[in-house]
């Protein structure tokens, strides 16, 4: 196994610089949960759904009424919350926590219904397909469906009251740069639509997105080259584009426990041929394979530290490592991640 450039093959103990890279600065969890709308974005496979679900659990734990929205509607977010696939209507997962999934057809219908008082029709599919094509070419409409729905939920009030239905809305964005088009949609629409009905809504949606007290983005990355580069580039484009605030970057699957000199000494002694037989007998098996485990741990720790440094050099907001959780999928993992997040974010 090759070691990455600049890191020695067998460092006896991580340097102070590496330890500092892992520790880093903190962000108050409470601050994050005070927002109204949090977009969770990142490359596919960076654990976006798990992070969204974990933040949702933490929000509900803090006494907020939380809505978690899955933009991709692949069922990942619902699964991470231990729920069967949700629908377009919010589905209650636990006390104070609901989940919903956006789908183009239904979103389109509801959008027309809410904003243009167009009655719901049964056979809208051909129309939706034409819309789909146009929406591909014209910046805005399709993303407006997504953002429009989110903004609608943000504005919703309890029946007969002025208090909002949701305190916190978490959005599990589609993979890759789609969050940009969602967030940029309002701005793009403003340049296209100069008057009329839609202008008014688009204006307040744009205001919501640009308001850093109400709306923020959480970036997700992994300690691997491409996810890190993409997170940095995405942040840059968001900064230049929609002007939305980014509160924190979460480095998922981080290996944060260093291999120390004491661990190495013990390992060397364990596999010393002089004692090998008696040690193996006492432990019930040869400890030789354990050396590979220690090697891998050290390598992953170094990798984590390297990418944390890179992210912290390039991103102005706190970058928080979320430890790798070797667990089953679903709610068990989400709970463990939520605990880790709450520890790390303080």
């Amino acid at each position, binding site marked *: 196994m090759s070691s990455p450039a600049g890191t020695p093959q067998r460092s006896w103990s991580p340097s102070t610089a590496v330890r500092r890279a892992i520790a880093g600065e903190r962000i108050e969890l409470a601050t994050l949960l005070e927002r109204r709308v949090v977009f969770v974005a990142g490359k596919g496979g960076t654990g976006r759904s798990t992070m969204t679900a974990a933040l949702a659990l933490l929000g509900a734990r803090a006494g907020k009424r939380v809505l978690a929205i899955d933009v991709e509607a692949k069922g990942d977010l619902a699964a991470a919350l231990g729920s069967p696939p949700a629908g377009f209507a919010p589905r209650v997962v636990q006390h104070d926590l609901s989940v919903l999934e956006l789908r183009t057809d239904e979103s389109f219908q509801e959008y027309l219904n809410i904003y243009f008082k167009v009655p719901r029709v049964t056979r809208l599919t051909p129309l939706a397909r034409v819309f789909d094509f146009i929406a591909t070419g014209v910046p805005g409409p399709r993303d407006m469906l997504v953002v429009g729905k989110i903004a609608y939920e943000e504005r919703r009030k309890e029946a007969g009251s002025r208090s909002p239905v949701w305190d916190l809305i978490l959005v599990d964005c589609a993979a890759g740069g789609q969050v940009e088009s969602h967030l940029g949609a309002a701005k793009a629409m403003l340049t296209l639509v100069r008057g009329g009905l839609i202008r008014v809504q688009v204006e307040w949606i744009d205001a919501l997105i640009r308001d850093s007290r109400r709306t923020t983005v959480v970036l997700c990355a992994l300690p691997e080259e491409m996810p890190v580069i993409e997170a940095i580039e995405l942040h840059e484009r968001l900064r230049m584009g929609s002007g939305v605030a980014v509160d924190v970057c979460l480095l998922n699957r981080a290996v944060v426990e260093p291999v120390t000199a004491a661990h190495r000494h013990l390992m060397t002694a*364990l596999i010393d041929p002089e004692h090998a037989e008696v040690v193996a007998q006492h432990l019930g*098996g040869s400890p030789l394979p354990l050396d590979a485990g220690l090697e891998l741990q050290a390598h992953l720790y170094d990798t984590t530290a390297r990418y944390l440094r890179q992210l912290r050099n390039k991103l102005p907001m706190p970058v928080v490592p979320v430890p790798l959780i*070797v667990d089953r999928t679903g709610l068990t993992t989400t709970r463990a991640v939520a605990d880790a997040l709450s520890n790390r974010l303080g």
Partner: protein
Amino acid sequence: MSAEQAGYVPERRRSVRKEAAGLGRRLAPLEVVICCGSGGVGKTTVSAALGMAIAAAEDKRVLVLTVDPARRLATALGIKGIGAEPVRIPKARLRRAGITIAGDLEAAMLDMKQAWDRMIERYSPDRLTAQRILRNPLYQRITDSFVGSHEYAAMEALYELHDAGEYDCIVVDTPPSRNALDFLEAPSRLTDYVGSRLLSLLSGGPSRFGFRAMNFAAAPFLRLADRLLGAEVLAEVSDFVQQLQLLYDGIQGRARSVSRLLRSSRTGFVVVTTLEQGPFDEAEFFCTKLREFKMPLRAVVVNRVLPDVFRDAGGVAAATTLVEDPKVAAWLAGELHLRVSADAARFIGKTFLSRNTLAHREARQLAKLGRLGEVPIVRMPLFSEEVSELEGLVRIAKTL
């Protein structure tokens, strides 16, 4: 740690593994090798390594066609950068890195924008039509975000290169798409779109009142769209669609040729995946679809596999004792004449056991690949693909 050191191969898979060992040789007779899989599974690296393995196996002129400006790949190939013009990888440099290639190895990056522009120019009935499309503000947007557009451009470029006959074998690193199937369906999807009746409804053309010559079915939509977007936008869309339809015959003809090439015996698909749930499910689905479309799947490359040492039974027993036996630290201290903290012993055990859990999960995933039938499966050990130098890439090429 290498795959050989860790090399425990289950009995029933051993024959398959042996077969896969000569993947470069097996793929060498092909004219087109297409690497596909989810984003982030190491497709680009595997493509480059495959190209290298093929050029090493036989005296062929091999081109690796990559889709992203992977600076690291350029470094790994020992060249300054990869552009639209193919760059040759110096043989001497390869030899120094430990591999002798019989043939020639070149790399080029696919320029999507250029591929689209050239396609429009080629299929337009005249220069004016081409210019009108290229200048339409919607055009750039469509080529950027149209489902399958990158895939289509990649295939178009591949077809041209293949047709030119300059290379014996072209290895394609496919664009990272949300759905790997986009790549297979791109030709037919594009023709569907361009030829769709729904779009002809839209190409009625703008008038002072928005749209004339409206079909009954389109009328409510156009009224609505007018309200949603304003007439200007719709006029642009309409113009674009009208122009695009002039290209229909050309695009349809080419899409058919591309489909034929993909299905021919000169082409082979290599599916790249990791054992993570998402990419793995997609890879499996993709393999099934390839079969359905009668496109030849030649191998599955499983990347970032934990070495088998993490499933060693003796290791598990030793690790469990280190974690659970409260007296183990004291015993070790006495036996090894060493200061041993209980924490250190537990840490060593725990580190191994957590990887053991993952390794078992991976083994269960790997076993599922049996469902794919007689397909060579190549396993690449974890981190071997974190290559920053040519030597790393060579090592992977040799694994293949």
